[in-house]
């Protein structure tokens, strides 16, 4: 079920490009990007990292959520060139050494998804939230903090359960914090 068509994305030829140096999922990267290229499109089209999804392209759904310097952000409303020098983490960077991140593992076990399209965004928000002591730990606070991630399949109940389970297992390891945060 892994998709073989997932091959060889190309660097677009545009009139002008700019050089972008940033860290993507722990790896330093240098790219030529168009000044008007949006981080989400660069990830999906230029770098072939399709895990970050596009559900609206206008900050209205959360499917495109990534971490920038450890903070959850909508990659559809951020120019790629704005990420100069920053640490960007996408869903592809959650699992380490082939081992699922505890949040991924709990999403699997709690069936915290259906079609899976909002799921990377949900998990990126979830991992950021679990690292953010400013956000309350009760269900109501979690639901409010997660409300920027729409799940049209309506798997909300299981998503919250997966998050709370991840919190409870102190297998959730604070050293996983990426970026500056």
């Amino acid at each position, binding site marked *: 079920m892994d998709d073989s068509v997932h091959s060889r994305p190309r660097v677009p030829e545009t009139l002008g490009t700019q050089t972008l140096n940033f860290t993507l999922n722990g790896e330093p990267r240098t790219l030529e990007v168009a000044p008007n290229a949006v981080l989400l499109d660069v990830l999906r089209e230029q770098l072939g990292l399709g895990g970050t999804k596009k559900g609206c392209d206008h900050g209205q759904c959360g499917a495109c959520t990534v971490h920038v310097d450890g903070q959850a952000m909508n990659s559809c409303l951020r120019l790629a060139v704005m990420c100069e020098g920053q640490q960007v983490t996408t869903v592809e960077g959650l699992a380490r050494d082939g081992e699922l991140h505890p949040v991924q593992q709990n999403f699997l076990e709690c069936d915290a998804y259906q079609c899976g399209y909002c799921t990377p965004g949900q998990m990126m928000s979830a991992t950021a939230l679990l690292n953010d002591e400013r956000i309350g730990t009760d269900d109501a606070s979690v639901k409010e903090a997660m409300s920027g991630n729409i799940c*049209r399949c309506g798997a909300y*109940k299981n998503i919250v359960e997966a998050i709370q389970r991840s919190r409870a297992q102190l297998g959730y390891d604070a050293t996983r914090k990426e970026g500056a945060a």
Partner: protein
Amino acid sequence: MNDMTRPDFDKPRVVGQRTPRIDGEFKLTGRAGYTGELHVDGMLYGYPVPATIANGVLESLDLDAARAMPGVVDIFHHGHFEALHRSPNSMAHGDMVNEVRLPFEDERIYYHGQYVALVVAETFEQARAAAQRVVARYREERGAVVSLLQTEAEGTLQESAGSTRGDPEAAFGGAEVKVDSTYHIAAESHLQMEMHATLAEWRDAGKRLVVHESTQGVFFQRNAMARVFGLAQENLEVISHYIGSGFGNKLFMWPHSVATAVAARMIGRPVKVVLPRQQDMTSGGNRPASRQRIRLGADRSGKLTSVIHDSTTETSLVHQYVDTCGSATPSFYACDNVSTSQRVLEVNHGTPCPMRAPGEVSGIFALETAMDELAVALEMDPVELRLKNNAEQDPASGLPWSSKHLDECLTSAAKRFGWEQRNPAIGSMRDGDEIIGYGMASCTWSAGRQPCEARVELRADGSLFAACGTQDIGTGTYTIVAQAVAELTGAELSRIEVKLGETSLPAGPLSGGSMATATVLPAVAAAARDALDAIKEVAVGSGGAFEGSDPDSLAAQAGGLTDGERRVSFEEILETSKLSSVNGQGSAAPGDERSEYAFRSFGAHFVEVRIDPEISRVRVTRVVSSIDIGRAINPPTARNQVEGGIVMGVGMGLLEKLDYDPRDARLINANVADYIVPTHADAPEIDVELLDYPDFKHNEFGGRGVGEIGLTGVASAIANAIYHATGKRHRDLPITIEALLASS
């Protein structure tokens, strides 16, 4: 016949057990390839240009500025497009489409968002930038039909979509207690998270077309494209491995797919089009608005004597779509005098299409709200009213139900909900600033089944492979197919690979109508049995692992065969006989049982709302449901479907509405911020019970489908709870703040 390879479906080992999704890891790591993120060599990006009016004529297109933009390769439109043919649009022949009109077919504009051009460029940014530079000039015409909700027009009667038994008019006339109410539901958007997407690639010098499409029906799309392009079906391949859900609007082909394939052929390079959200909403399907009148007659004891259900729904000017609201009504309650009628009205909207529980979900809102009104008129508990009218056999066909446990759903959910604590007096239950309302409704969805083929291979490397040309739209089809194979072969789930979503695979059904489970699993089981027969033949053959044994004496056990004393794994058997694999084919179709029994799922939703009248706020805080879907093949994914349906029901009840400008029928809230759906914070506390009564008359696995039923009835239960809290009967959806204010 030896029955040892038949699993004991009364005590299955894997089927019916909690099974984490086998495709889960792909979805959770970002490796699952949804159509929009696929890449092929030399691929270009297309961006459609939508009409900005809803009624008129496209007078001219000025393309000079757009053509001059960097990266632009070509721009397609009415004057620059291939001549094609329409699809016959037949359900029975598997080539139904969602919009029969081809893209750019003429220069008339029938709806806002209709494509007037397709810009193709080297990159996504370039295609979008150039599309915004296309200047279209229109002659707008007055008189656009904006919405069913803004006209008295009746629409055209659809004889075939109605039914009558007994003499409902006379019975209604003479009824002791009557309800006569009219209900309106605004048009809704599917708002599936993944927009429609097509990647079209011509191979073999333009003779073969490979299309990646986010679709709920690869075979339907293949067949329709074959008709449109005049290609042999064999020269077309449609692929859809992961689908960011569809809820019905990806069942059949839309014009963007045709436009993409034409662009790819004319340019000679693959083209990908992902509809921007606005166009997905204007031009990629919607649930049409409905107007429904329900008349109920009953005697003093609460026995229904008449049910008359008259509905009108919208369709577009370019395609006839009938959203039959009354289709559940004749089977819902025991009543001798029942009629339904259906009309459709043409409006200047993008074409509506099936959306989760199409027709029925609207119909059940009206019927179950009317039942609540009847309960009030009778001063009777609404649960009791439903129990009293429970249909012991299908009143529409006169056939016995294959399996029905609505009464248990009603009583069990009522108990878990705490219905007995309900004080029936309006507004009597308070907590601080809030009034608490309790409401309930029954829900139902028909249990269909289609013919299906499948293939199962047993391989020398120890793996098993199952294939079927159906799709997994998030309901968990990959996993239940693996479960079925595991059940029959005893193999570990981790050894089973499942392939779906390709027209090169054995023909499978649409992922829709809650039919996939009951359709696919029997075919997969037949294929698995055939594969077992094949490996037994190998095992008993000369030099085989069970050389000389009677094949009927062998049974599958733990991924191998056993004669009762000795177990040999499939891989060993194949290796011993120097084979790489054996193959089993299977097919299954509904049979005589369809004329002996009626098949339908039922359930009940109980809803708590909290209303703070001084700030006009209503929130659904708790939903308790009991649903009878036969056996749940994978209980967590089945429950997830119902929970998701409940969340969508909250949207339907309180939030969702496509807003068409009353002056010109333009859709003004075609985005995810202004078309509001429930968020995490809107999701109520949900408790879903799935009754476990396997329905072996439906199929050997005992499962009926579960995708739609959870949504039906929810909006009515909410409206009924609001009535209990406020005494105001809401018959129009969504129930907005304005409506609440107007009632206070």
